[in-house]
């Protein structure tokens, strides 16, 4: 039980880490809706509105923003604790692009007017954002994007198509990378735009994923006309703006969180099937537990860096590569032991917290999104090991 109850918008940075953790833990326990713990799928904003607003009222919605802009202004080490406690409690991820991406980007590169208009609306939940980066023909080679923004008088006119827009159906506004100069190296002719999804010419279509969930969308832009002030930062600076934003957040791509959930799922399934005493299954569980604990040690070595305030290098990619392998191996074993239950489209009828096929399917994209494992290995080979770049 923490010593103090935090008031909304208190500065929690001066607290010792342990006390900070206790406060966060307690507050989450008190305020997080029980029925939303460990959701099987990504939440839509309509499901998570209550939690969004609780965080908003407490002033905890934007732990990574500076305090003068309404954030918590947490140090990296405190932010790490905040995330760990959320993961520990099984807190769902919100449609958080406004908080993680747009806010920080406007704070650094936006105009005063852009900041004044948008930051409060993100913090209040009035405007939910989505991302328009990926394109059907770009994939991992994001910089080869083809969506065009042409200047026409005071306006910009956008044409093109985006894909893999997370929770696009939930969003009010979208931020978009579009090509504004085709005569320079591909990274150098890209600009960053923001616009409401209601702008004429924008069409958003959900994509059903393999888990039968509409987590992603396609977004089509047909002669979408937006005013001059829709650009953020300088023309043709969009690539570097967007790229630099990701800094120590990359550690979260390798957080053991999902693997912990999957291994817990597996252990409960083994128990449900009454197979815990089979030596091969017991040995398999033990091996996976050891590997998970090892991954946690590995994660800790990067988290220590963050805590010490050191920047993360390209070697942090190793964390995500390893997690993908482990997370997917666990879910492969879930299928291996599930017998006929592996086939079922829905959770098991006699225990709806068990859902082998979904656990397996949800682990698939971990090695694809956020830079596929193949791309990550290319990066590590080149930037960490210094191996020649004949191969992109």
């Amino acid at each position: 039980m923490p010593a103090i109850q935090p008031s909304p918008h208190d500065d929690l940075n001066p607290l010792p880490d342990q006390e900070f953790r206790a406060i966060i833990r307690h507050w989450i326990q008190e305020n997080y809706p029980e029925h939303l713990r460990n959701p099987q799928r990504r939440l839509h904003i309509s499901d998570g509105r209550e939690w969004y607003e609780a965080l908003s009222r407490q002033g905890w919605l934007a732990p990574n923003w500076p305090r003068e802009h309404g954030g918590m202004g947490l140090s990296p080490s405190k932010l790490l604790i905040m995330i760990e406690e959320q993961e520990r409690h099984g807190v769902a991820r919100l449609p958080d692009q406004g908080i993680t991406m747009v806010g920080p980007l406007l704070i650094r590169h936006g105009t005063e007017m852009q900041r004044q208009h948008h930051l409060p609306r993100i913090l209040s939940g009035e405007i939910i954002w989505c991302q328009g980066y990926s394109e059907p023909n770009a994939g991992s080679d994001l910089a080869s994007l083809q969506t065009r923004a042409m200047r026409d008088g005071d306006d910009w006119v956008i044409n093109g198509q985006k894909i893999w827009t997370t929770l696009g159906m939930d969003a009010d506004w979208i931020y978009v990378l579009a090509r504004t100069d085709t005569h320079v190296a591909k990274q150098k002719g890209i600009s960053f735009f923001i616009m409401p999804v209601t702008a004429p010419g924008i069409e958003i279509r959900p994509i059903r994923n393999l888990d039968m969930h509409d987590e992603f969308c396609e977004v089509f832009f047909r002669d979408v006309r937006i005013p001059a002030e829709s650009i953020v930062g300088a023309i043709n600076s969009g690539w570097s703006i967007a790229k630099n934003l990701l800094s120590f957040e990359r550690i979260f791509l390798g957080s053991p969180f999902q693997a912990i959930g999957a291994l817990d799922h597996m252990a409960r399934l083994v128990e449900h099937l009454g197979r815990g005493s089979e030596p091969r299954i017991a040995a398999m569980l033990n091996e996976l537990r050891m590997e998970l604990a090892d991954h946690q040690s590995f994660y800790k070595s990067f988290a220590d860096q963050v805590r010490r305030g050191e920047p993360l290098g390209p070697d942090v990619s190793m964390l995500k590569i390893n997690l993908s392998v482990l997370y997917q191996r666990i879910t492969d074993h879930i299928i291996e032991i599930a017998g006929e239950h592996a086939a079922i489209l829905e959770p098991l009828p006699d225990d709806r917290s068990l859902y082998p096929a979904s656990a397996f399917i949800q682990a698939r994209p971990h090695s694809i999104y956020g830079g596929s494992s193949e791309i990550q290995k290319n990066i590590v080979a080149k930037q960490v090991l210094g191996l020649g770049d004949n191969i992109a």
Partner: protein
Amino acid sequence: MNDALHPDDLDRQQQLRMLIESAKGIAPRHGDFTRLRGLRFSQPGFDRDVWTRIAEMGWLGLRLPENAGGAGLGMLEYAALATEAGAALLPEPFIEVQLAIDMMGAATPPSVFAGDEIILPAWASDPDGLGFDGGVIVGRGGRLSGEKRFVPMGAAADRVAVATNAGIFLAAMDQVGIQTLPLQDGGHAATFHFECCPATPLEGDPRPALEAATVANAAYLLGVMERAFDITLEYLGTRRQFDRLIGSFQVLQHRAVDLKIQIEITRAVIRDACVALDGGNDAQTAVSRAKTRAAEAAMLVTRQAIQMHGAIGYTDEADIGLFLRKALTIGNRYGSASWHRARHAALTERDM
């Protein structure tokens, strides 16, 4: 190596090729999946017209002797057809009806061969393995009580052939309670409830029939992985990233080779299991090897097919995902790899 499951006999090879050729009408290697997508998540989940055509082609009862209404063919031929079915993701319960026929043997009603009636086999009560004698008890007058689970496409049954520890019983569906669960491949599995259900006892042994169904399932999985691999190879040869075909990246090339090796080993092991089954007895170790290899290879190939497709592979819209779903759905059917490994260990222990 060509695609057939090579027997040594040249006449039989010729016959096999014709059989595979004839399968194209029902299970084309290069067809699209419009029909399948239309049937997904509906009941019964397949097409009675196609079923009639399957019957007309003589696929049903193909291993039964000609004097018992069958085609007198062997396991090699059955596996070859099952592979074609897998490559087309054929939703019709061809292997299950064949299992019922193999269980019933000469007692199979002619209406089944004609495709007019569908008799499905109900044998499983555990979620894993080939055990068939649990779940249902035979009472006085041959009345059945209890339940059988995991009957693929069970809602389509006109009658049901129930395997029990007291032999095989044929029951009409009107006295059987049925519950269905949708499956990842768009089909469903049924639980059949029997409560003092009247049934007719039949001569027959489910054991060899289940071994054959296991190999047919492995062969279907072979077809699934072959086609998933072909689609992926084609994607590697057309998709560009970083200004080159992704199929020119050495890492993906080597991974494709690894998958190809798994496919070819699966083919070889299934062939050996077929030869053992056609030869008569003691085929169980070969059957367990076939199922183990097929299940693991199919999961590997379809998983990696998704990975090599990248984000598009994670959409329901992309056909490649249908193959992952199919492998997920039938990979543990007729015993998972881990069940068959344990059986292999038990069978071979005495030889050590």
